[in-house]
């Protein structure tokens, strides 16, 4: 993971927040908007160091709150906690597996809105909650889960395109080469 990838994730997080605010089609169609930030945090926590995870959680959360009625900074902590947990369990997670990516995205997208809403209630705000919130939560969970493998695929492609390819190892050694020819001929 190089700095280019960190910038790319930040750029995608910025664009994701913009798109969530600008495009109303999905919300008009199914009554809920998908949050892409948890999926990005999952990718960052499995592919980068803790500083990158902190950067993405902080900036992503602040950008999200700046376009929302949320108090500024309330979305940072849920994203960072998710990133932290996944980052410290990274040795136990098979990041290349599609199933693992999907399940991680599912869990992250489920936890992030719950944590944010609980924080909002804790700070004395009164978010719009009801039975329809369950449907919205379900859409957010499934949408985030579906986006996570896409996120891994795209960023891994991007990373491969902008980094040096590893030299493939070979078992060939020139000093052990058996040279074959027609053999020695003895003339009688």
């Amino acid at each position: 993971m190089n700095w280019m990838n960190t910038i790319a994730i930040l750029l995608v997080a910025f664009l994701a927040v913009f798109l969530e605010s600008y495009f109303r089609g999905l919300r008009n169609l199914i009554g809920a908007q998908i949050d892409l930030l948890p999926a990005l945090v999952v990718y960052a926590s499995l592919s980068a160091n803790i500083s990158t995870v902190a950067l993405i959680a902080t900036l992503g959360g602040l950008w999200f709150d700046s376009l929302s009625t949320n108090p500024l900074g309330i979305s940072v902590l849920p994203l960072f906690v998710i990133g932290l947990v996944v980052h410290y369990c990274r040795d136990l997670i098979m990041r290349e597996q599609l199933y693992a990516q999907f399940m991680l995205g599912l869990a992250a997208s489920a936890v992030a809105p719950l944590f944010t809403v609980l924080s909002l209630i804790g700070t004395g705000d009164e978010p719009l909650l009801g039975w329809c919130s369950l449907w919205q939560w379900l859409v957010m969970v499934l949408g985030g889960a579906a986006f996570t493998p896409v996120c891994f695929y795209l960023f891994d492609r991007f990373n491969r395109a902008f980094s040096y390819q590893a030299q493939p190892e070979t078992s060939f050694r020139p000093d052990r080469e058996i040279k074959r020819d027609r053999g020695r001929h003895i003339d009688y």
Partner: protein
Amino acid sequence: MTVGLVLLLVLVVLNLPEQTAGKLKLALGGLFLPLFALAGSAQNLAEQTGNTLAPRSALLQQIDELRKENQRLHEQLAQAQEASRENAQLRRALGWQQRVPWSLKPSRVVGQDPANWWRTIMIDVGLRDKIRPNMTVLTSEGLVGRVTDVGFDRSRVVLVGDPNCRFSAQVQEPRDQSVVAKGIISPSASSLDRLLVDLVYVPGGSLLKPGQPVLTSGDGGIFQKGITVGQIVDVRTNDHGLNLEARVKLAVNLNRLEQVWVMLQ
């Protein structure tokens, strides 16, 4: 170290004074302005391209319809002017205060709240257009909401149906315009339909019926009296018949908001 820094930052930001936090929020949100402008320009370009591709016959037909509508509106304006003169005379005779005409500022909707638990939009007018908090936002169909945060060139509008936009409304009898009952417009959390809100705390025994129009009552001082909110869909009793609750279908389609008007007075 990193964990501590993030926690410290969150604590500092969450405990900022409201005004400072608001300014910081607007500054951070300002980073998105070029993207919103770009997206708006692209949309306009697409619309213009679509217009140039419209057939001449359709345009001529549209011009013809607009001419007829213009003529009809001229006639209605003449009648309204006459009624307004008569109204002013009667108000003078009765010693009532003159009604101040609404001064409206058009604006475009540029974005909406990315969180599912709020119902707010952003509009492209702000302090430079003399927009202030709590100004009424409406369309020709009816009430949209009120302005909450104001930046230099954009503002946040809290929509009808958000927990932060509760207000007093009255139900009118369509035949004689008499006031049937008053209540509070509150969000309807049970419905996925963003166009349904609840009218609560209506006194029991009020004669509420589906189809009756709901208008702002003017109580509370934020919304002027008589702005259309919507129509009653159904009525149910609450608190052992002490109160009535009605579901109200909003007159404005909040899902299709493109252009709104901010009432400057």
